[in-house]
């Protein structure tokens, strides 16, 4: 066999493993493949494999048997580095937290490598022997890796269609959960090399293959079940929240009703007086009345109606619920709230909904907490423009916050245990390209602005 053919064959297996890894990891995350990043990953994985081969070659040239270090160690190193690179690339490509993408990468590495080794073993054990070398190579290398790639594509498609990523992302709601998932995935990934390390001469056979298939299936089932359980828990929590929001909304409506009733009473009284004045021809008196009552309705009901109008313009349901809850909370705490949403807010934003909710939540909580003790006031402005979504949250204060200290990690005016919100807010925003923030004091208000570019 020529050297070119050998190199091509090695390259072929490497490439298809890399493709399969990438496709499956993207499938787990439920996204569309980005070709540029696929190419980048392909290059990186070649570099890693090349590095390992280079080390082995170096040892060989130096006269040391490369097998002095078990192949399993090389594998372990190779897998781990590849998974980290894949995780990093995916993190950049889809702007997801690194922990999230790394777990997907590790899981994908586990599945692909296990499946890959099982398929090659099976092919090598069960295929008849051929006397033509090229044909043998074709059967032993090209077929299994192509099949592997095909399987990965199929699996990715199924994962995406079944919306596995919803369950998967439920595992990353809390840090502890995310770390645990990552550790489990990593342990699964290491099983094969570690077994190789413990008993280097376990001969691959059908039982061995069955064991690994069972391991993949069991591992995936376990993950799916935990994820479904977690997602179920989250759903219950979300429903409870919805109920609370509905109640808050009801309270607002009731308040409005009460005030309309009082208003009706007032108006009836006022008009009977007016009728009398009109009968007497008291023009000056009527003018005085008009002047006094023209803004009466706005004063009485203006803010509630404005709030409702504003909320109705927020089409993004999760954001609307968040705002409803926070407005209700402010009413409870006697903080005056003004919400202005002039134009309908688009459902499609360049920032992920969960991240947007976290940002708004942090800013609102801070604003409510920092608002003046007496006569606290929080103003919320959302403005959908052609090229950006503009968000501003302003609050009044007792003592002006120190802006220069605001970027410092853990800055707070409220004592220990506070001040983590702002730094995580900055962290989220800095993940999105084009997003800009502005913090300033204006007319005795502390204003936090967030600009999110339109999709």
């Amino acid at each position, binding site marked *: 066999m020529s050297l070119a053919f050998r190199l091509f064959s090695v390259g072929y297996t490497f490439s298809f493993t890399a493709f399969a890894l990438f496709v499956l990891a993207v499938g787990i995350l439920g996204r569309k493949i980005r070709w540029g990043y696929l190419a980048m990953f392909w290059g990186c994985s070649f570099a890693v494999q090349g590095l390992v081969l280079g080390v082995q070659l170096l040892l060989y040239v130096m006269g040391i048997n490369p097998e002095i270090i078990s192949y399993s160690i090389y594998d372990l190193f190779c897998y781990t580095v590849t998974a980290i690179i894949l995780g990093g690339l995916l993190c950049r490509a889809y702007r997801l937290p690194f922990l999230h993408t790394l777990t997907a990468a590790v899981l994908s590495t586990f599945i692909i490598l296990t499946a890959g080794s099982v398929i090659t073993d099976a092919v090598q054990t069960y295929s008849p022997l051929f006397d033509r070398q090229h044909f043998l190579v074709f059967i032993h290398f090209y077929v299994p890796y192509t099949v592997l790639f095909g399987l990965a594509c199929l699996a990715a498609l199924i994962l995406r269609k079944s919306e596995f990523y919803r369950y998967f992302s439920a595992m990353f709601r809390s840090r502890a959960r995310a770390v645990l998932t990552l550790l489990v995935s990593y342990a699964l990934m290491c099983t094969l090399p570690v077994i190789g390390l413990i008993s280097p001469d376990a001969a691959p056979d059908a039982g061995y293959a069955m064991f690994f298939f069972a391991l993949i299936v069991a591992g995936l089932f376990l993950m799916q079940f935990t994820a479904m359980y977690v997602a179920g828990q989250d759903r219950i929590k979300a429903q409870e929240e919805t109920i609370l929001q509905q109640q808050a909304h009801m309270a607002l409506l009731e308040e409005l009703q009460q005030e309309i009733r009082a208003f009706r009473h007032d108006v009836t009284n006022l008009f009977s007086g007016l009728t009398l004045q009109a009968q007497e021809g008291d023009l000056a008196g009527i003018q005085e009345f008009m*002047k006094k009552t023209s*803004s009466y309705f*706005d004063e009485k009901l*203006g803010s509630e109606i*404005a709030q409702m109008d504003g909320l109705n313009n927020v089409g993004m349901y999760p954001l609307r619920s968040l705002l409803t809850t926070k407005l209700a909370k402010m009413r409870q705490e006697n903080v005056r709230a*003004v919400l*202005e949403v*002039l134009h309908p807010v688009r459902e499609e934003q360049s920032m992920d909904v969960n991240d947007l909710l976290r940002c708004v939540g942090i800013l609102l909580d801070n604003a409510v907490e920092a608002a003046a003790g007496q006569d606290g006031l929080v*103003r919320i*402005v959302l*403005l959908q*423009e*052609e*090229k*950006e979504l*503009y968000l*501003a949250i*302003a609050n009044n204060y007792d003592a002006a916050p120190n*802006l*220069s200290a*605001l*970027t410092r990690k853990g800055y707070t005016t409220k004592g220990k245990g506070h001040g983590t919100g702002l730094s995580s807010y*900055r962290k989220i*925003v*800095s*993940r999105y*390209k*084009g*997003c*800009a*923030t*502005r*913090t*300033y*004091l*204006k007319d005795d208000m502390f*204003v936090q*602005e967030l*600009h999110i*570019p339109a999709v």
Partner: protein
Amino acid sequence: MIPVYICDDEEPVREKLTHIVSQQIMILDNDMGPVHAVDDPEILLARQKENAVPAIYFLDIDFPGRISGLELAQKLRQYDPRGFIVFITAHGDLAFETFRLRLEALDYIVKGDTDSMTLRVQKCLESIQERIEAQRPGQGNYCTIKILDTVRHIPVDSILYFEAVGRRHTLQLHLDEELLEFNSSLDHFAEELGENFWRCHRSFLVNRSRIRAVHLKEQLVELDNGETCLLSRKAKSEYQKKN
């Protein structure tokens, strides 16, 4: 002279307001005027480019069938980021916070009886006068920053320092009483602002005129509001050579 524009499609309101504004300018005796009254927002946009900026604008909040006051103000702002915008509205329940924060609108005037309108116009013009006088000393030097679609002119004197944070080309701009964070590169601003700014560290660009002290031992640059920036070894040796 700072030109004044009044844009409202209802003739009685426009005339009344023109009268009030001209009168108040005369009483205040400052360098505002002449007063241009127009009914069509498009004409206003065309006129704006013929005259000097910054200018003062009194704008109706909506023009039925044409662009809204908000859009008009946004267009005016693109050309005149430092102008003064006052809105005219028929009802008091205007969502003014949006206009105030987004467009830095100054105030709004409710259409109604002459006395209350006069009072409000007087207040607006006085506050514009104050702001113009407050701006004067630092005039001339502005740093232009484009954030998404909004252009801002920031007086160079109010800049403390720039800091590059994170990997994603995020810049933090520290001003007096304000903090901006946006995507840009330090090199860009180092080039634009020239000699008045000192690159005292790979990720810091400091306004020289705002430095209080350079602490060589602690490798810090202290600014006049007490904030500190890092000082790199390279910048330190440069500094020592100069002095």
